[in-house]
């Protein structure tokens, strides 16, 4: 392990490398997500090393276990490769996955720009877009739920949420960074799901574009809840395992915070009691 390994949080990286080429690479990697968890690979602490020599980039990463699913490991490696290559000054990128059952296979495949199928040969019988799509659609549902719960907790009514148009979402005033962030993340993925998202279209729709209805809204929210709980739980497991495996303090969950109206009311009541 290298000396950079301990510096996995976004903040410390920005502080150390600001203005350097390494910093630019870290920033580009921050936009790469674990497809299953819908969280940034840098926030999760997966990326251990970034080094730059002139126009060549080296990226080292590791995962919570030796047995983490090979398809997600490949997707992250290939997405990181693509993200770094997109920087204008970069001419070559080497991505290295450490201590994984398919380390060698994946590292070789990425180095040779092989597709998933060609990387795994007989062990695959097609590309991974179906798995990618499935988890991307779960990410849509999760981001949507988080934003809707955030709004509900701040006195938006179900009626107003169901009726909200894209242009209205764009100009919604948010009182804190959290709202800005949730909204930006949702708007990004809304372009991929739920049909047209021109300014006149509804902001909150089902995956297939069907409009939400006031009388079935609570039920819909519960459906989304199941997806989000599963993803959050997996994120918690991954963070705990990574910390235990590599002896780091756990990377903080910067990506997902849930607004529970009832919980917040409870906390507000508790704090009143305390005064």
């Amino acid at each position, binding site marked *: 392990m290298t000396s950079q390994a301990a510096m996995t949080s976004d903040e410390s990286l920005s502080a150390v490398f600001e203005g350097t080429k390494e910093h630019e690479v870290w920033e580009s990697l921050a936009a790469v997500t674990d497809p299953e968890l819908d969280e940034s690979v840098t926030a999760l602490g997966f990326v251990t090393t970034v080094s730059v020599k002139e126009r060549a980039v080296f990226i080292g990463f590791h995962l919570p276990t030796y047995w983490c699913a*090979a*398809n997600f490991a490949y997707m992250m490696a290939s997405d990181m490769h693509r993200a770094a290559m997109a920087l204008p000054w970069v001419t070559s990128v080497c991505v290295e996955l450490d201590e994984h059952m398919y380390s060698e296979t994946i590292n070789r495949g990425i180095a040779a720009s092989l597709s998933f199928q060609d990387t795994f040969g007989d062990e*695959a019988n097609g590309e991974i877009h179906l798995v990618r799509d499935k988890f991307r659609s779960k990410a849509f549902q999760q981001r949507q739920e988080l934003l809707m719960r955030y709004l509900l907790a701040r006195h938006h009514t179900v009626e107003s949420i169901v009726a909200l148009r894209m242009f209205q979402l764009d100009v919604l005033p948010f009182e804190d960074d959290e709202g800005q962030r949730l909204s930006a993340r949702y708007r990004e993925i809304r372009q991929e799901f739920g049909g047209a998202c021109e300014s006149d279209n509804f902001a909150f729709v089902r995956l297939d574009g069907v409009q939400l209805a006031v009388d079935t809204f609570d039920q819909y929210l519960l459906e989304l809840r199941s997806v989000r*709980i599963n993803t*959050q739980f997996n994120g918690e497991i991954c963070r705990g395992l990574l910390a*235990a495996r590599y002896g780091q303090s756990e990377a903080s969950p910067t990506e997902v915070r849930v607004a529970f109206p009832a919980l917040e009311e409870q906390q507000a009541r508790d704090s009143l009691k305390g005064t």
Partner: protein
Amino acid sequence: MYRTDSGKEIFIIDGHTHFWDASKENQKNIHGKQFIDCFYVYHSALSPPEEVWPADKFAKYSAKTMYEDLFVNGPDDMAIIQSTYLKDFYKQGFNTIERNHEMAKEHPDRFIINGAFDPRDGKGALDYIHYMKETFDIQGIKLYTAEWRGDSKGWKLNDPAAYECFELCDKLGIKNMHVHKGPTIIPLNKDAFDVHDVDYAATDFQNLNFIVEHVGLPRLDDFCWIAVQESNVYGGLAVAMPFIHSRPRYFAEIIAELLFYVGEDNLLFGSDYAIWTPKWIVDKFMAFELPEDIAKERGVELTMDIKEKILGLNAAALYDIDIPARKKKLKAQERVAEAV
């Protein structure tokens, strides 16, 4: 036995335990090392710090240690032992049915020892099921679909060869199939943790019970959708339960989902010993209250009666355990042991 503050006795059947040998001497290759290292990472990540074992003890522990952790220092009354072979990783296997019987021989009434089969053995798998039934009178099977075997990196419950095994189990009255999903089913382009094969098998074998270990994690949401439709699908809570210590709110969310979809009659406690010891998990579970907001939103409750079902009554129903009779027998044996 767990006794509540009001003196009520709760009979505890630990639905998921192991007696493994993952020592260096038994490891065949790097995968054997990485397999137990991964278990140890789960153990150390989710146990309270004072419950963490040294790595060498974790790799191989004695029958006495296990008995004491479960029944003397721990609250278990009975434990279900799952056999897992992994012979491509461990020279003598990870925990075979023979090794498990050897461990349990002094306390046979404490243990239910399940077998294992691998449908990739073809006719060999059928012969092995006969052998386990005749030799050990097994009532349950642990199925580890992600086990590596030669060039194969796993199998599915709806493979035709698996169906032949289920038909035979049905015929022989081996009812309980404990399914564990692992990470490396081929083809790799598909979701390795996909649980939909459980749906097929559970629909086609209505006489069998499918206990999905680790409640389908990391595909809890998919598992819930399957379990809600199939009354013979159960959720084993091993791995989910330790979160009660480190992340109680996540645990509350999970248990609320499971109570809603899978139901209070279809959930089984499991410590996953030796990954975790049952004492602290049961203590925390008994003291646990579902936060009001979660209970309200999901419309479920976690009462003492429901806890009692999860901790023992549901497993007793699956394995035809007469709890009052068993209690009496175990107490009598304890008295004899004390007198000696």
